[in-house]
């Protein structure tokens, strides 16, 4: 469960995700790169992003939010985290 005081600044989310992807793939990332594109993560590892976001930002990603498109770029993942933290109930999924 998160409250408004637990919200993470979008920039901080993006910085964390870029570091995570760099550690994971050994290459540099920008906020708009395709995470599943060349040199990125295989689809089989997409759940690692979900687990990382849940552990790091205290959100719960379930139901309709579990779509690969929500995780395709650092930008989209930070938008998802912001939306889930704002919702405050841990998720808007089914």
């Amino acid at each position, binding site marked *: 469960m998160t409250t408004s005081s637990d919200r993470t600044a979008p920039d901080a989310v993006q910085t964390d995700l870029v570091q995570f992807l760099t550690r994971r793939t050994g290459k540099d990332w920008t906020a708009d790169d395709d995470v599943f594109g060349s040199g990125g993560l295989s689809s*089989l590892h*997409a*759940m*690692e992003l*979900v*687990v990382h976001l849940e552990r790091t930002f205290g959100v719960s990603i379930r139901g309709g939010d*579990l*779509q690969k498109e929500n*995780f395709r770029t650092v930008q989209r993942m930070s938008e998802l985290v912001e939306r889930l933290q704002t919702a405050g109930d841990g998720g808007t999924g089914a």
Partner: protein
Amino acid sequence: MAEDNGTPGSGQPLAVLGAGVMGSGIAALAIGHGVAVSLIDVDRARLATAAARIDHHVRTAQLLGASPAADAPGELVTGLSPDGLLTGAGAVPAAVIEAVTEDADAKAKALADAAALVPPGTPIISNTSSIPIDELARAVPRPADLIGTHFMNPPYLISTVEVIRGTHTAEATLAAVRALLTGLRREPIVVQDAPGFVTSRILHPMINDAVRVVAAGTASVPSVDRLMQGCLGHPTGPLRTADLIGLDNLVDSLWVLHRRTGDEGCRPCDLLLDMVKAGRLGRKSGRGFYDYEGEQA
């Protein structure tokens, strides 16, 4: 509610015997499609972690579009023995899927125990990568109810399933299993009974050869996989596939093939045996031909 969560068209749960890699994967496939699962395993520790592992699998399938996100997930019930879980109101399963360890005696016992508890006509499915169904049929009271499946790992992502019709398998059993798999959006391919059926008979000696190539120093692990992927269109490469199967399971399956076919190409090679002895079992142990540290299996 059973009528909401049951196997499509039947309102009954699916019973899964064994909460290992395949059992939990098959359970996740069913649950992700709104089918209730009764999961049984004699190992208390493995059972204790099953719900979390299955939830992870279900979410992976949803994330990759392999499971309908709109369906309410099926209910999961777990137990240490089949006695209470396969009998009683609302508990009689639409089918039993046995997914215990790839050992003929262990499978025979699990199948016989379950078959004794469910009504005649309930499909008893052995999920095996290589053990002939006719051998397992000797252990069950009604061989007509017995049939084989060979789900690939992970079952919730791979949409084609090898289905093995034994000599004694009834037409009705085959029809029920086809309907079950179709309801789970899988494509069943029915084959005749033989050691390793089709996929393992071809794939497992090939992986064994890939390991021999590495042991001989002809090429590195990544080079073997890249060549098989890039030149021959293999989706993951034989050695990464071996890691996904589990090297211990692969060795068990190779022994099954070797003993029953006499094909020396199926004798597990030394490097494979050494890796199993050292506990390098592939993805599930964090290390095999590749490292998987930090990943959840």
